[in-house]
Structure formats: C-alpha cells, structure tokens
C-alpha cells in the first residue's frame, strides 16, 4: 500500500479543506520520506487518526483506551461552534485518502457530521465511497460499507494496522517488563502467524477428545478406568486454573490502569508535585534495581558449575602433586616398560642374556624398580589426568574472585533496594498525610491498589506453578495410560477412537508450538539485524541478540549469551523496541516488498544523537514510505542535514497553529526547511 494524498475537511484541528501529499518512490526517484513538523498539540497524530478513520472508520487509537468517547470528537470544534451560532446546521467533515496497491489506484472518502447541541458534541457517521481504478483504466465505484471494509482489510488487515504507527506509547509499552509487554508481543506474533484455523482445529479436537474420554471413562473398569478418570480430572483442573489466570491477568491490567489513572489525578495537585516526581524516580530506581538483582541471580546460576570445582581443591592438588612428583622423579613416563621388567623377572634373565638369581641383590633391585613403574595404560592415564587437573587448577584463582565480586555486587544492590523502599515508604506517607484532603485520599486509594496488585501477582505465580505441575502429571498419566492399553491389549473400538483423538490433539498442539517457536526465532533474528544497524557502535560491542522469551517478553543478550536487559539505558531500550516493531511490521507485510507506510510519531524522545542518526539513515531503506511526525526539539538542523544526505527526503509539511483548535498545513520545499528549524548546541 502506498499513500499518495490525504485530504481533510474540518477534521480535528484542520479547519476547512487541507491536504498532504506523501512522498513515494513509484517514480523511481528514491524519495520516500515525508516529514510532518509541528509542536505538540498541533495535529501530527491527527493526521494518523485521519487515515485510520478513513480506512477503518476508527475513532480511537490504542493510546485512547482510557479517553472518554465523548472527548474523542473528530469534527473541528471551532467550526462546530461557528455553525451553532450561525445556521445551526451540522458541520460536514470528511477524510479522503488516495492510495495505490498492486497496480490499482484507490480513492476512499469517508464522512462524518458533527454539531454542537447545547454545548454537547453530537457526531454521526456519514457516507463512505470507494473508487478503484485499475491499470487498464476501468473505474469501479462502491458505496456499501461492508464491501468496502472487506476490500480495505484485504489490502491491509486490521490486526496489522497496529504496526503502521510507532508512537511513544507503543514503544514505551514494549520496553516495560510487564504483562502489558508480553500481551503486546504475543498479540503481534499471533497476528503474524494467521493460525486461527489451526487454533480452532486444536480446540475442536480437544473437545472431541474429552467427549470420547468421558465415554471411555463411563465404560472402563479397574486400573485403566482409574487412569482415564485421573486424566480427565487433571484436565478439568487445568481448564479451571487457566480460566482463573485469564481473569487474574485482566484484574492485574485493570489495577495497573487504575494506578496510572490515580497518578494522573495526583499529578494535577501542584502542592505535592515534588513528592510525586521524587516518587516516580524512586519507583523507576526500584524497578531498575530489581531487574539488576534478577540479572545477577541469573548470572550466579551460571557460575555454580565452576565454583563447585573448588570444593575438591584439596583432592585435586593431592593427586596432581602425586603425579607431578612421580614425573619429577622420572618414574613416569618410565624409561623402561613395565612388561619388559616383568619378563626379565619371570625368565630370570637380563636383556644381555645373563642369568639372574632370585636371591641376588640385582633381583631385589629389579623388583623394587618394577613396583615403582606402571603399565602403559595406567601411565597414559596418569599423564592425561595430570594435564586435565592442571587445566582445572588454572581456574582456581579466577573463580574465587568472581564469586566474591558477584556476591558483593548482589549485596550492594539488595541494600540499595532496601534504602529505596524505605524512601518510597516515607514519601508515600507524606503524600497520604498531605494537607490536601483529595491528595491524601487518592494516595490511600493508590496504596490499596498496589497491595491488591501484589496479591494478584502472587496468586498468578502460584497458579502458574500449579499448572506446570499438573501438566507434568498429565504427561506421566498419559504414558501410564498408553502402557496400560498395550499391557491389557485394550483393542476395543472406543478406546482406539479416544487414543486417535488424543494423538491428533497432541500433534496439532505440537505443530502450533513449533510455529510459535519458529516465528519467535525469525522475528528475533530480524529484530537483531535491524537493532545492530540502529544501535551505536559502543553498544554493538556488548549487545548481541534480541530474543523473544518463552513467556513472550523481550530480552536482549550480551556477547556471552547472558540476559542483559536490566543493564541497558532507556535510549537503548527504545531502539530495541523500534527494531522489534519494524521486524514485526516487515513480517506482517508477508515478506513481499515492505509495501506499507511507516508512521513514526516523535520516536526520538530519549535517543542520543548517534541513535537518531542511525534511524534517519536506515529507516528510509526499510520501508517504501516513511512518514516522520516530529516536534521542533526532535527535528533540528542536524537531523534535517542527515536526512538530506540520504537523498530520500521528498516532502516537508509545517503544522502551524491558527488560534485555539485550528491548525494550518503549510508545505515547504525541502531545500528551504532550514529556515524554520532550530539549531542546537549539542551534537
């Protein structure tokens, strides 16, 4: 899908009829970057909203989840005010999008009417019209919303539109190590896989299995019957727990949302703003420290092996010294083989032929010599072992130091956590006893939510644990069942059907798991490749791979393959999220040319200059169209210069405020943008 022109009339801040033409590469001139520039609140996100509204009749973006429907008006407010005073007619608002896809040009226009009625906004969906023009010049007009919906979804599935827009919120969600992140990722990957059919098949086979097993349970007796019953009870319990988990996840989400809502409310109370800021910082610190502690614990787990060697240091040294001594005494490797000495003794004849008497001193010498030497095999063993033990000994020094260091670091981190928690408690108490009654009330409510959330998380962990145990028991019982079937030669037809259903269910589940694992791997690899291009040189040395963990959380590994997420900066986390989203978006475009416009809404927030530079230079190459929405603090002369160097920058639009609720779109020639951009001292 390539966007060519967006026309808006009275949509959000864009009063009157205004348009934006997007830079695109069809002409082969390589210019596919459009910059839309303006201060916050001037309508950058509205442009994206306009497109979502036009394509899908969507009023909401994911960031609006907690915004009241009443506040989400799409029709320009000042225009509605004017109309309310003037002719009292509803305001006509539409968005028209011209785009092309696989050789066909489309013009889609969607309308909405809006009016103010006694101060309240009333909006009503209007018409929708789609015109398709094929390469051979034929034009088809459609007005049926359902038909239009189907065509648009075929071009760009609703589920994938998530990846159109990279905004700060989405990036932020991905960097949080929380159930929100995991859900975001899990959803993204599932969308990609497009395995709804497989999932339905699995559920249906599961049902079949349960039906047949229930029948089998009714008819079976003895040990076999008992096993079937236990299997069923196990499954029932697991289903119950899984439902509980889903409920808990929702409750935890709600608690987190509620907490954020309360935080927003508290933020409005000036008197406690300092305390709130301090609390935010402390909570972030607590989180960071928690992650550090986790990381250290993981690290410790990898060191137990080497550390254990030291437990038998004495024995190792003793044996090593023993062999070493014998080596020094030249007893090994022996100069004369033991079997030769034994031959001499048995034949009682020296190698020169002289007879040796058993009473002679020479004979005694030779016996003593024999006792000191060893056979070849044992000698080889001793020497090999000596070498191995030498290797083991070489680790000793390092190991002790490493253990000490890591234990000390952990102790420091734990100490820090304790201190931070104490400070947090103090601040919480201060806020709770604030003179502002509303602040105190909100704070108490917040603390309650927090306790509730912790309780929920604990219950969640417990249930997950129980599920793991039950799953293991189920596997055990399944094996026992198959054994029993074989033993007792249970060949009745019902039993065969039940077994077939079971095996098929397992097979489908297994394939599902394989796919999920594969897609995680593919995305991880793709994200890693992109990440390496975007990250600064210094980080490239330490950070090696992005992986999607079993629980769908994002992790980044260092060169040693160890988890490193806890130790990366906010900027690096942002780059990681961007790389991940681009990887998903690329995969969502079904591996064909990445024909999907990429909107990035102020992505530079926490990024260093080097990161911004990498983004500006790399992203135009990833996507067929890049639409960058930026503020004046993010996009300055330096950034413009970098973009210019890439020679892919085609369009620049300035969003200018024209009084409250109104924005004017001004196109500027890319060559002339420097006049409106800031210069900044820092590079």
């Amino acid at each position, binding site marked *: 899908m390539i966007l060519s022109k967006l026309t808006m009339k009275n949509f959000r801040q864009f009063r009157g009829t205004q348009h934006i033409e997007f830079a695109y590469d069809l002409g082969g001139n390589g210019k596919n970057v459009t910059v839309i520039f303006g201060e916050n609140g001037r309508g950058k996100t509205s442009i994206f909203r306009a497109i979502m509204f036009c394509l899908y009749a969507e009023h909401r973006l994911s960031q609006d989840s907690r915004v009241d429907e009443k506040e989400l008006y799409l029709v320009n407010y000042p225009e509605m005010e004017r109309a309310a005073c003037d002719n009292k007619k509803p305001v006509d608002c539409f968005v028209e999008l011209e785009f092309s896809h696989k050789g066909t040009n489309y013009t889609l226009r969607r309308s909405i009417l809006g009016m103010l009625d006694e101060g309240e906004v009333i909006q009503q969906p209007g018409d929708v019209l789609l015109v398709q023009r094929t390469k051979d010049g034929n034009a088809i007009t459609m007005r049926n919303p359902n038909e239009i919906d189907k065509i648009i979804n075929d071009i760009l599935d609703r589920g994938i539109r998530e990846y159109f827009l990279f905004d700060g919120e989405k990036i932020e969600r991905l960097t949080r190590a929380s159930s929100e992140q995991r859900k975001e990722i899990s959803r993204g990957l599932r969308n990609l896989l497009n395995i709804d059919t497989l999932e339905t098949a699995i559920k249906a086979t599961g049902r079949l299995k349960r039906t047949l097993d229930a029948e089998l349970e009714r008819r079976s007796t003895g040990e076999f019957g008992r096993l079937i019953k236990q299997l069923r009870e196990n499954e029932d319990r697991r289903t119950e727990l899984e439902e509980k988990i889903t409920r808990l996840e929702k409750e935890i989400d709600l608690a987190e949302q509620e907490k954020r809502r309360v935080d927003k409310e508290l933020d409005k109370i000036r008197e406690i703003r300092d305390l709130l800021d301090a609390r935010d910082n402390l909570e972030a610190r607590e989180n960071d420290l928690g992650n550090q502690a986790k990381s*250290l*614990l*993981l690290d*410790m*787990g*990898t*060191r*137990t*092996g080497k*550390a*254990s*060697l*030291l*437990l*038998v*240091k*004495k*024995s*190792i040294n*003793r*044996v*090593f010294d*023993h062999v070493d001594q014998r080596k020094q005494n030249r007893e090994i490797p022996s100069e004369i083989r033991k079997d030769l000495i034994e031959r001499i003794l048995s034949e009682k004849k020296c190698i020169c032929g002289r007879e040796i008497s058993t009473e002679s001193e020479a004979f005694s010498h030779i016996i003593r010599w024999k006792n000191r030497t*060893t056979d070849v*095999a*044992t000698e080889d*063993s*001793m020497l*090999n*072992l000596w070498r*191995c*033990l030498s*290797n*083991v000994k070489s*680790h000793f020094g390092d190991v*002790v130091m490493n*253990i*000490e260091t*890591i*234990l000390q670091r*952990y102790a420091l981190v734990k100490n820090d956590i304790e201190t931070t928690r104490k400070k947090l408690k103090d601040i919480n108490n201060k806020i709770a006893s604030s003179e502002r009654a509303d602040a105190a009330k909100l704070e108490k409510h917040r603390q309650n939510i927090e306790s509730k959330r912790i309780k929920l998380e*604990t219950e969640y*962990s*417990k249930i997950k*644990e129980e599920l793991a*145990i039950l799953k*293991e028991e189920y596997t055990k019982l399944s094996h026992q069942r198959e054994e029993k079937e074989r033993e007792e030669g249970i060949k009745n037809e019902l039993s065969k059907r039940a077994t077939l259903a079971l095996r098929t269910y397992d097979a489908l589940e297994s394939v599902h798991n394989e796919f999920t694992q594969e897609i995680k791997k593919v995305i991880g690899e793709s994200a890693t490749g992109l990440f390496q291009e975007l990250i600064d040189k210094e980080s490239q040395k330490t950070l090696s791979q992005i992986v999607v963990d079993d629980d769908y959380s994002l992790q980044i590994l260092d060169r040693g393959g160890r988890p490193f997420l806890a130790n990366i900066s906010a900027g690096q986390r942002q780059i990681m999220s961007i790389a991940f989203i681009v990887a998903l978006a690329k995969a969502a475009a079904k591996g064909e040319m990445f024909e999907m416009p990429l909107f990035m809404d102020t992505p530079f927030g926490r990024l260093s200059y080097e990161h911004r530079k990498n983004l500006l230079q790399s992203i135009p190459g990833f996507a067929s169209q890049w639409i960058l929405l930026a503020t004046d603090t993010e996009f300055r002369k330096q950034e413009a210069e970098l973009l210019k160097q890439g020679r892919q920058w085609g369009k620049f639009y300035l969003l200018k405020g024209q009084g409250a609720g109104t924005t004017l779109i001004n196109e500027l020639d890319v060559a002339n943008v420097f006049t409106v951009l800031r210069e900044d001292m820092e590079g």
Partner: protein
Amino acid sequence: MNMSGDIRVKTDRRYRILYNELKNFVVKDMHELFFLCACIGYRAGKSKPLGSNGEGRFWSSTITPEEYACFYAMMIEENDMNFSVIREDKTVIARMEEYANGGMEILLEELLSDFLVTSGDEPRLDHSHSKELPKIILNFIYEQILEIV
C-alpha cells in the same frame, strides 16, 4: 579413563523433580548439580548407595572434562593413589553416584529444607520464596571454599 559418554548416570528417583527444577536456575544443567552433590558428599565422606531407588537422570556425555577429571581425582585419592581404579568409567560413575546421593541429602538438610514443599516423597521447590536460591547456593559453596583456603 576414557571420559565415556555412553553411561546413563543415575540419581535417586525421588530427586527427579528437584533436578528438573534446579536446572537452568541454580545450575546450568543436571550434570552440574550432580557434580556439586558428589563434591559435597565426598568432602563430608558421605556416600549412600542408590539401591533400587536409582533412576537414569542424564547421559555422561554431558559431563565436562573438568568434572570427569575431578571424579577421577576423588576416586584415586579415596583409593590411596591407586590409579588402576579409574580404568573403568562405569565404576567411577557408580561411586560418584553414591557420593552424589549422600551429598544431595546434605544439601537438602542444610540448605534446601526451607525452600521445599514435599509432594509425596519427592521434594520440590516452593517457588514463592526460592528466588534467591542461586545466591544461597553460591554463598554456601563460597563458605565451604573459605574453610579449605
């Protein structure tokens, strides 16, 4: 002294779950836990035959050369520097199984008892408060090492 990889190393069947749980948590893999237990058992002079409770846990191919070398060293030291005892890896492993069995008992008694729940006769970790176990184990080893040094 071949460092054979085709021996099925056994532990008490009651520790099946524990071995699975401690893997990828306080140790990288099962052979590491086995090694740790064997060392603990050997140091304490506590060996305990598996008897009929033995159950295959992992293949000796996962045992590292360093661990094998230590097994040999322990075996040789125990037998008054007689190197012929390490000729047969099966014998070495069997002896280490006994030490590991004894060592696991020590580990359970002295360290893990606070972090377990027992289901039947198979101990398993109480995950709700065993998050610091890697540190506790490492610390335990460290203290033991300090006694030697």
